[in-house]
């Protein structure tokens, strides 16, 4: 029976004792760790993940080469005809995602280096103070935060302030709703980037500005993006994207509210923003935009 076979296969997928031990330790540590350490970890994780994204030759090269994830597979049950699928990676660190949950929607941390000096000019309304009680309508997994809506954004983007002694840690959280983002126009509106970009730079793999100022080209870039289609839900188009792309440039745009967004622009006429892949319709995109930036 299929059910029996599926269960039998599943039984072979299990955590090693070593990974289980690390997991248990991490869970316990997360409970007992003081708030400042937790905030630091959150910040470090964000920087590390940004670094990982930025440090790739191409953010998709590893995926194309299939060598980004080295998996140490240990076969422990040699007595069985089908060996045990036990995944163990002694070097893998189980990281902690910081997130909010508000009105049943989950929010991911997208930025934690917002300048606190002008916070009053960018926040809109206070939603409340988050609780670490999972039953709360406004839940945060690491610490209590004052949570606000932001001027110019709907409630899918929230700002959170965590007070620690004399420090304020300001973070931006985002809820990803794939139903909202069908076209480039949708992402432009969602990120509110049409009229408030104050800086735009190419960045290198360390996130440092390189090359020319991109700001003069932003209106052309956004015009191309405006008419582009988000193809992330179309498996065939995503496959085509992976098989087509050769090189890309990364630009950081800074908005007047302090939010920074990253756009990867591909020679072959794609933009990768916030996990969405946009296919550009302009056939001359490479000459018109890509070669100029």
């Amino acid at each position, binding site marked *: 029976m299929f059910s029996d076979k599926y269960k039998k296969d599943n039984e072979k997928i299990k955590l090693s004792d070593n990974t289980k031990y690390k997991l248990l330790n991490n869970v316990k540590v997360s409970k007992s760790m003081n708030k400042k350490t937790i905030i630091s970890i959150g910040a470090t994780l964000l920087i590390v993940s940004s670094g990982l994204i930025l440090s790739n030759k191409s953010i998709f090269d590893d995926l194309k080469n299939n060598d980004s994830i080295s998996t140490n597979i240990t076969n422990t049950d040699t007595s069985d005809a089908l060996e045990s*699928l036990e995944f163990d990676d002694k070097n893998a660190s189980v990281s902690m995602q910081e997130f909010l949950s508000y009105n049943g929607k*989950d929010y991911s941390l997208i930025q934690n280096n917002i300048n606190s000096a002008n916070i009053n000019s960018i926040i809109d309304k206070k939603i409340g103070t988050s609780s670490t009680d*999972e039953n709360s309508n406004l839940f945060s997994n690491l610490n209590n935060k004052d949570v606000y809506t932001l001027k110019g954004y709907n409630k899918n983007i929230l700002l959170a302030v965590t007070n620690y002694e004399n420090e304020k840690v300001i973070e931006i959280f985002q809820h990803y709703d794939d139903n909202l983002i069908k076209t480039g126009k949708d992402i432009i509106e969602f990120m509110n980037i049409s009229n408030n970009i104050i800086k735009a730079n190419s960045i290198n793999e360390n996130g440092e500005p390189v090359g020319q100022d991109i700001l003069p080209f932003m209106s052309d870039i956004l015009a191309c993006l405006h008419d582009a289609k988000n193809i992330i839900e179309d498996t065939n188009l995503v496959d085509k994207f992976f098989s087509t792309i050769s090189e890309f440039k990364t630009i950081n745009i800074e908005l007047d509210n302090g939010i920074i967004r990253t756009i990867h622009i591909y020679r072959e006429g794609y933009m990768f923003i916030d996990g969405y892949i946009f296919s550009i319709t302009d056939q001359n995109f490479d000459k018109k935009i890509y070669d100029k930036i």
Partner: protein
Amino acid sequence: MIYVREIQISIEEIIDRYGDNIYRLAFSRTKNIYDAQDIMQDVFVKLINSNKHFETFDYLKAWLLRITINLTKNLFNTAWFKKTAELDENLATYIEEQSEVYKYVLNLSKKYRTVIHLFYYEDLKTTEIADLLKTKEGTIRSQLTRARNLLKENMKEVEFDVFG
């Protein structure tokens, strides 16, 4: 503190009881062992912070499965996940060689993988799956039917004794 029927349960015991279930569900949805481990950790961090009282172990398990699904949904929307969403080549080869039917399930899309996993591994009823995934039972039934048909097509080359 987590309580089931007013009895305090240690996180160790819960991980022993349900750790593999959570890991398998997370893996079937993410197809990535690292993401599955991260999700699993986040599930238990949520649990330990929740101070919940569960009436039965079944409620506890259902809660863990629901949180796993919610966290993987959240993960699917991140750029990082979309970068690493493909199955690792070594792992893919291993599963191809060592599993009888799992490899076919992993080739299904996420929504079909999930309903197949919850139905055939967790033995949940379609009403329970609908509750977990916050959708209508009719939708789950049609997804199961479609998933079964896809599996039948893909498993033509193996001796296939239909679904139990």
